């Protein structure tokens, strides 16, 4: 049953993606990307990644939508303008990449089998040692904050740098503009 729910949700995901490609109204693109994030979070729940689904929903459907709408407010553009760009080159590049990726998936193990190489390396150790070593039942939390905590620390640094970049890009120039407006 979970397999069929998974397949149906993935089909809807593909349909929403096609709608995003075709759509020219930028608000609709933003709302459709929010819908895409909700559907993706549901897929992740079906695939047992509960924590990832929570993060994807809060980041993709929450923060990302609000940030995109904020940008639409700052730029004030409502529609994508219709330039007569040739679609031959993008189509060729993406179809070529797609063909190579499909060729690459032939070597992958079948979906959901238990003895795939991914599951034999270190994951059993994490699952077995989590309770005795840390006492936390949620293994994802254990790995994130205990076994790979330096990784998480690096991620925090990345977010800090990005926040700094956004503040430098937007803060300074807008303040100047506002001062100029009050003078004139």
């Amino acid at each position, binding site marked *: 049953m979970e397999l069929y729910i998974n397949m149906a949700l993935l089909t*809807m995901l593909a349909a929403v993606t096609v709608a995003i490609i075709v759509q020219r109204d930028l608000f609709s693109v933003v709302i459709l990307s929010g819908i895409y994030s909700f559907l993706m979070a549901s897929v992740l729940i079906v695939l047992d990644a509960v924590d990832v689904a929570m993060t994807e929903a809060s980041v993709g459907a929450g923060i990302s939508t609000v940030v995109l709408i904020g940008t639409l407010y700052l730029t004030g553009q409502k529609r994508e303008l219709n330039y007569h760009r040739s679609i031959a080159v993008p189509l060729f590049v993406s179809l070529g990449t797609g063909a190579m990726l499909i060729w690459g998936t032939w070597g992958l193990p079948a979906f959901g089998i238990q003895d795939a190489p991914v599951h034999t390396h270190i994951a059993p150790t994490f699952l077995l040692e989590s309770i005795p070593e840390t006492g936390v039942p949620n293994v994802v939390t254990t790995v994130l904050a205990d076994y790979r905590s330096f990784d998480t620390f690096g991620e925090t640094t990345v977010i800090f740098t990005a926040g700094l970049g956004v503040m430098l890009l937007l803060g300074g120039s807008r303040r100047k503009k506002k001062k100029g407006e009050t003078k004139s």
Partner: protein
Amino acid sequence: MFTIASIAVMIALALAVTRAILGPTVFDRVLAANTIGTLAILLLAVIGFLMGRPEWLDIALVYGLLNLIGTLAVLKYFRHGDLAHDAEQDTKS
């Protein structure tokens, strides 16, 4: 029992996605997005019971709150043209 419920919710989800893709105005899409959020919460709860692990319902609460925030952000933009609208300015001017 939960199989029937999950099939019903999946069909409803498919119809709501259709409305989001077809929707002639932006408001149709916002309405469909709101409905998809509700249906995702229901699907989450039903799948939790279907697989026998209904402990994940906290996530459904997160979904519900985010759904409201996303909808209100979009609609506030349309109503006032601004995300941080000050209601007092309306009465002053």
